[in-house]
């Protein structure tokens, strides 16, 4: 377990080193939000109904940004061999990287998401629920994203490949997450949709470490 903690701290340090990647992701999310009124028209009548959905779409896209470097930089400079020879199994390495991705990028994005949603016309009292749903959803994004990043190891244009592999897997959390907010806006209980979102996260958390570790082993061979 000590190796896991050491790795988690190092991943967080790497995510924040060299230009504050997480802040860039948050900036990207806000830029997407700013572009939408320019594309769809700035009338609240048009924007308010899609505010939650647009914020979720921006969240999903911003979550993709830093995935490319998650395994690739360790693969290029030989650190992945070292990670494979430590005490924790490769499954734990993938888990640690996914957790670090969530802590470093997912949580800051979850705090930014309600800013985007409210700016587009979502009711401000939904902001706490938006943070909760986004935190849960970005955890799912981190797990499926880490799996996609491991699968793309060794391919040129890894970033594009990750986006194509991972975005379809991002559909369920986007549906459940924005669905929860829509139901809450309509006066219904959001908890069913949130429970489905949590179920997706659990599924991803169980599957991603094994699939990711298998992909890493394949890339090392």
């Amino acid at each position: 377990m000590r190796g896991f903690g050491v790795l988690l701290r190092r991943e967080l340090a790497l995510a924040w080193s060299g230009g504050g990647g997480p802040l860039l992701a948050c900036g990207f999310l806000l830029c997407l939000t700013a572009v939408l009124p320019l594309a769809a028209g700035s009338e609240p009548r048009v924007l308010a109904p899609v505010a939650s959905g647009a914020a979720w779409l921006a969240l999903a896209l911003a979550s993709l940004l830093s995935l490319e470097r998650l395994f690739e930089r360790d693969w290029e400079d030989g650190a992945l061999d070292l990670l494979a020879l430590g005490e924790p199994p490769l499954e734990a390495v993938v888990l640690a990287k996914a957790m670090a991705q969530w802590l470093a990028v997912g949580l800051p994005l979850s705090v930014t998401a309600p800013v985007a949603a409210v700016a587009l016309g979502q009711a401000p009292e939904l902001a706490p629920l938006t943070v909760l749903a986004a935190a849960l959803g970005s955890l799912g994004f981190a797990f499926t994203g880490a799996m996609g990043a491991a699968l793309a190891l060794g391919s040129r244009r890894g970033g594009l490949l990750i986006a194509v592999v991972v975005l379809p897997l991002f559909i369920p959390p986007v549906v459940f997450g924005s669905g929860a907010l829509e139901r809450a806006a309509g006066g219904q209980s959001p908890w069913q949709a949130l429970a489905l979102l949590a179920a997706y996260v659990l599924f991803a958390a169980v599957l991603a470490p094994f699939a990711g570790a298998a992909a890493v082993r394949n890339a090392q061979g």
Partner: protein
Amino acid sequence: MIRVSDLALSRGERVLFRGLSLAVGAGEAVALTGANGAGKTSLLRAVAGFIRADGGEVEVTAPLHLLGHLDGFKGGRPARAELEFQAKYLGADDAGIASAVERLRLKPLLDLEVRKLSAGQRRRLAFAWLLAAPRPLWLLDEPLSPLDARWRAELGRVMSEHLAGGGAILAAVHDPLPIPARLLELGA
């Protein structure tokens, strides 16, 4: 510690070697030689368990370190942070790291970014995790090539001490190791 019998390895379509057998026991050093592309690195990676063999068996009975030509250090981070991460991840404690830093005289380098180190200094930094996290088997890929004469001799002493303590070394080399070692030529 290593028993390789009748090993066949290939990379892509190309067969590197077939029928290779090799045994390395405690206190022994084996130097792998051979032309570029003869399969020295692939053999080391197969022993480490990264490459699946086409045939034959690889049996490794002791924990191992693999020091390849890529050391896994991140250029933009301070040497101290990188050394501490790698050594601790491999199981070292603070005392082990401190004594390795002392032995390899790394102290003046630790506050520099890794990218500011010369190739030889980087290699010494990588050797520190071999010393800080003791494991009996060392797999080394051209371990001494970037080092000057003085440090080649010094790391020769480090390797001798490792062997004297019951360790074993399998090293891919072009120049002879500064310690008594059995030679195995690949592709001969």
